């Protein structure tokens, strides 16, 4: 086989392998992902047992701690819909009412149970949008 044909074959093989891997990547990412939803979207309808990534703000006055578990409500960033969440696990330091949070939840009855250690609170003070008042 002359060298240029060998090179072309190598190129085709390499590209083919790359495409295959990229395809596997894309496929598994869709099946392994959890859908991101806002509270009103979740309240509108959700499959029990499927995990969702809930983003929103912690509703004022809704945080209750019972031992290692906290319950709170998450409301829309700018809206009224809210859902109750029960969460056990690490509570990040910046967690507070009015802060934006991301938590992976699964519906159990009327309450959304947060996955352990999946609660993320966004750092508040840096790079705020213009209309947020300074704390």
């Amino acid at each position: 086989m002359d060298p240029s044909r060998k090179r072309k074959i190598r190129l085709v093989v390499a590209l083919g392998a790359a495409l295959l891997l990229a395809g596997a990547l894309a496929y598994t990412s869709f099946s392994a992902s959890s859908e991101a939803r806002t509270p009103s979207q979740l309240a509108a309808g959700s499959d029990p047992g499927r995990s969702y990534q809930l983003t929103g703000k912690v509703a004022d006055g809704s945080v209750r701690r019972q031992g290692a578990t906290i319950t709170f409500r998450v409301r829309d960033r700018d809206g009224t819909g809210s859902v109750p969440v029960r969460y056990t696990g690490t509570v990040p330091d910046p967690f507070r009412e009015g802060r934006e949070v991301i938590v992976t939840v699964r519906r159990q009855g009327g309450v959304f149970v947060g996955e352990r250690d999946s609660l993320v609170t966004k750092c508040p003070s840096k790079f705020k949008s213009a209309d947020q008042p300074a704390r």
Partner: protein
Amino acid sequence: MGVLGRACLILALGVALYGIAASVYGARARRREWVASGRRAVYALAFLVTVAFVVLEVAFLRSDFSFEVVASHSSTTTPTFYKVTAVWSSQEGSLLLWILLLSLSSSLVLFLTRHRLREVAPWATATLLGFGAFFALLLVAFAPPFGQTATPPLEGAGLNPLLRHPSMMIHPPMLYSGYTLFAVPFAFCVGALIARRLDAEWIRSTRRFTLAAWLFLGVGVLLGARWSYSELGWGGYWAWDPVENASLMPWLTGTAFLHSVMIQERRGMLKVWNASLILATGILAVLGTFLVRSGILDSIHAFGASTLGVPFVAFIGVLIAGSVALVISRRVELRSEHRLDSLLSRESIFLINNLVLVGLCFVIFWGTFFPLIAEALTGKKASVGPPWFDRYTVPLALALVLLSGVGPVVAWRRATLASLRRTLLWPAAAAAVVLVVLVPLGAGDRPLALAMFALAAFVVSVVGQELWRGVRARMAMSEDPVPLALVALVRRNRRRYGGYLVHVGIAILFVGVAASSAFRHARDVRMSPGQTAKVGGYDLRYVKPTAELANEKISLGAVVDVRKDGERVTTLRPTRGFYPSRDVEQFGPIGRYFEGEATSEVGLRAGPTRDLWTAIQPDIQPLMPIIAEGNRRFAQSSGDVQGLVIAAIAARYERRPPPATFRIIVSPLVTWIWVGALIAVGGALIAIWPVGAGARRRATAGYAARVAREIGSARSGPGRPEPARRARARA
């Protein structure tokens, strides 16, 4: 001084735009004075931005709250070190830092190359000034740092207590140094493409900048990981958060570039690939800067939509379009001069290494931007979590470590299988020994971690063997004793042995990562004083609670006694610090001291074999009734009386502590992550370190003389004149 600051930024924008015009005109009309003027515009930009930065720093140091930025990020009670660094904790200040670092590194590289690269440098100048103009525009029109209020507040908001940690304050300058230093090879690549001068010189002139960029960016990423581990209450160092990923991606493509340029320098191959890599690195660096402040992805760092999103997307769009257009239109000049000689060669290994690194970057890119991709394709935002990332990055990381062990051993152009087998015998044996030793110890449960340990042993033995053979070869030639031979060997071959050391460092770092993720023991447990928890073979007893007041921070914590098999190991003191909120109405005058920011002081005992990590979450619910009463009774009291009340409440926590939640983690070999990183940094410094001019001249003279002799003999063939003497003298 706000007027001075604003004026400097407006002037900076003007100077940058002028410099672009002057450089482009000077390049096209071949007028050297205009090119020089464009270069001076970069120096002027650096000067102006420095003045603006100093003005802002002085405002922070003097706690001049008439500036909004100072009022919202600092306070009179902030320690001086944090006042200095609080400048870049703000959006505006961080942009100013970015343009400062950009203008300084641009000035340096243009000064160093002022007599060379006459066809490329003007376009590179224009590109660097293009970056400068963009950031100056942001600072003038979108995020001005010198906004003032007519009625300055008496006290500032103070620095977010989460950021009051040295690592956190050095982390942005390190990252930005990395990003802005990558702009240098980016700009020179653009210049080389525009001027169609695509051989070796633009790479050679910017090599140290690329290496320095790689180093600073790597250190920045690691500082962030270290801060996360030792300061935050979750006990991990990497979460595949979009912003973390954004800083890692240019580092990965930069690493690929550093390897593949070596192929271009030797064989003139891979020009398109290298150009694309460095252009992608520069674009990813800007993307990283953008992602932190964009709000397009949900992340612990990303903060709401800011007004900077649109300009950044436009800028990145221009960079991408321009890069693609340049590479495609110059594809003739970018043709390879040679082809791959053999599949078994160092070129080939570097190619595979490049593919793995770019593959890693692609995986991380896909996972990071997946919410947007999913939304575009299915209309619903979805995200992938750490398990998905781990599934793909771990095998790629294993492949990378394997390659870093095989690469040094394979010769350039064509390696013989026999010599390869001979050379890899001992390292492979070392890897096998590690496997045999670790499997009975229980490592067999985690095959991936075990594979990493074996591969790391492989890499370390390869490098050790290389050093040993090099020292022996040197001793055979010069009769130096071993230490001197080692030093001389490394000094004369900095790139090679510095690079080997980096490989060792990275391998050790991965060992630390593998061990601490695969074999950690973590527990969340609620304990009252006197109770003990068993984690990972250690007994941790909650001895007693602690309560301390300092500087407006209330620290409630615990003393934890750690024993193993009855023997006392150490005492940990995790605490949780409560900072006051300024919101008196919502929380009350006493309550506000418990409702502001809270930080964890982690109780950490690091060790060579394992880290003991613990964080506490004290339960202050039982204190709430007392605090409420304090709010009622002492609403009108003076600050001193309120202080006494808070001290009393804290003392009460100490006397009658409710059970607290502890997070306890025992993870092995974490320290080796930081040790591996330091080793890699050392290797990079060795590789960057400039060869003394004397040594370089000596080396060139030696070879030049020999080669020149050959020129003389080659030229004195039949019928050819012999300018050999002139050639020898010139060389």
